[in-house]
């Protein structure tokens, strides 16, 4: 059974989902930022982890990519990835 995206059900639920996804993410992020801003300043020593340089960049990027990929991989594999594979097989929507 196929349901079209242009129905009352999908219009409403998609709208709510987009609203939540767009704006409700701001609340936890602001809370994290506030918490970080309130942290005590600690002078640097050899035991401090440097947050400038390639090591931190690689770490941050891979954490974002892996956690992000893990969250969206199921949805992506049934959506764009499958569509791409079907398109390759000559089936387009």
């Amino acid at each position, binding site marked *: 059974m196929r349901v079209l995206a242009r129905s009352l059900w999908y219009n409403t639920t998609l709208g709510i989902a987009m609203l939540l996804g767009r704006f409700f993410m701001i609340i936890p992020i602001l809370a994290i930022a506030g918490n970080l801003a309130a942290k005590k300043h600690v*002078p640097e020593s*050899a*035991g401090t982890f*440097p947050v400038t340089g390639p090591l931190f960049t690689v770490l941050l990027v891979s954490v974002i990519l*892996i956690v992000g990929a893990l969250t969206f991989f*199921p*949805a992506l*594999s049934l959506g764009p990835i499958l569509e791409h594979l079907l398109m390759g097989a000559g089936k387009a929507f």
Partner: protein
Amino acid sequence: MTTTPAKATAMTDRKILRHAIIDSFWKLDPRLIVKNPVMFVVEVGAVITLVVLVGNIVRHTGGYWFGLQITLWLWFTVLFANFAEAMAEGRGKAQAETLRKARAETDARKLRADGTIEVLASSKLRSGDLVLVAAGEFIPGDGEVTEGVASVDESAITGESAPVIRESGGDRSAVTGGTKVLSDEIKVKITSNPGETFLDRMIGLVEGASRQKTPNEIALNILLAGLTIIFLLAVVTLQPFAMYSGAPQSVFALISLLVCLIPTTIGGLLSAIGIAGMDRLIQRNVIAMSGRAVEAAGDVDVLLLDKTGTITLGNREATAFHPCPSVTEGDLASAAQLASFADETPEGRSIVVLAKDKYGLRGRELGPHNPTFIPFSAQTRMSGVDMDGKEIRKGAPEAIARYVGERGQVVPPEIQQQVERIAKSGGTPLLVSQSFRVLGAIELTDIVKGGMKERFDHLRSMGIRTMMITGDNPLTAAAISRQAGVDDFLAEAKPEDKMALIRNEQAKGKLVAMTGDGTNDAPALAQADVGVAMNTGTQAAKEAGNMVDLDSNPTKLIEIVEIGKQLLITRGALTTFSVANDVAKYFAIIPAMFAGTFPLLGTLNIMKLRTPESAILSAVIFNALIIIALIPLALRGVPYRPLGAAALLRRNLVIYGLGGVVAPFLGIKLIDIFVTWLHLA
């Protein structure tokens, strides 16, 4: 010095294993497992699959074999995590058992107010009671010696068989219940009520009964719970997607995916890591009053070390004689030795020994000379002997200068120069005079313990600054701190100065660790983030600190810091490993779920797993077995290397991050080959 309190650990390994297996089933109790959100989700998943499986059997739907295997492996996952925790607790329990034996009921001789003696059971003693303990008797409770000196066997607590001296007054007055008096009789004032003694607390700590989650553990638990919720949402929303695409999924596949994604590896091993960290401390004879202190030790920036006994050997030793131009070295040595015969201090004895070693001056027959020994007194700051009408004296330079000055004599300028040179080089000068004439100077030197420089270099490479605390003058302190290789020093330190120093460092956002044993150390021990009290110290010091070192070895702070760091690193490494594992599990499960409806998604099956069932089953089996495989690492801890934070992180990221991505691809493929070979799926 490194004997463990409970030699039981080695012999009871098999017993611990048996207990741990039984305990892992008891720990299935949902009221216990709910404290661990990740494992709780797995258990709920296992219950759901079990219910669905039974429902399928009742309704004869077929395909039980796959459902049964998934259900079993989900239960194994929970059991393995319980087993890890039970194993870690087991060793502590074995130690608690030996400690309990030391707590056995004894008779106590209580001294009544009227001076009579009443014999009663040790468990009836209250704080404030006075008891008499003679040679051969057990001390009935924790307390302070108020009268007498005795040698005490504390091996029940410390594992150290050499007896220790406990005496009234001073910093060696504390006694522990359950230890045995070997000689003499002491009067002890009991300071704890039954059930609150040091031994009771120790038993509680090693058993893990009083274990509370530390701030770091709580933070990590929040992160793990957060990840669990995210993956729960990812899996729950997958079903509508799948239904929309016309490929609805079975409960077994969905719950398998969920359990594989949530961080079960670290969730299952988290409490085992914490307990094992405490246990490693106990094996080094350090009792931590809270896990919080162990974690703080891992983050320490500044280490305060007392000079005497920690950096230098306890006492100064005579190392050279510097005579006046008109006096031979032998005469000076002879006079110095005579003046020191009655001096029982270690410094005095070292002068006698040096004179003997260097000039062959042995114990002489002093009887015919009619000697009168003058003991050291704080007023004169001199000691010596009167014999054959001669007054021989030895003492601090200012004291001798005043003493000869009264007879119109002065200290020769050559000797004055020597005195200044000795003081600048970190030594202590003493002058010797005979018949009011200065013969020369004795040089006493602080002996820096061997290997200290390396240990401090080691600490520096870990990013920890060491500071020496001493009552010496700044000149001497500077010389010794240079010799020992510490980063900084606090000279002429009073207890208030120590407090001020700690507060100052803490205000800069640093964590401070220190050791101490005296009552005057207690405020600073309480203020420091990690305060290690020596077991030989006073009750006040032990109460104020958050760790007690049973060996009373101040350099152990270095090992405590390493254990703390190791604990934090182990947690971080296994969390990274656990999350990195998920990548491979997706590539196993997602293509398997939709292979039937969309064979094209087989492109994602990069491991080329045989069938959809074997792929899902292999991922679940890998997820369960990796917990068992990592138990030894969780208990032992990730090997610690003294490198800077960046180098250490880079190393561990390669091993546990990159390794965590790669390992499950190999592991799941291997299990798949095995599962197919056995025709399990």
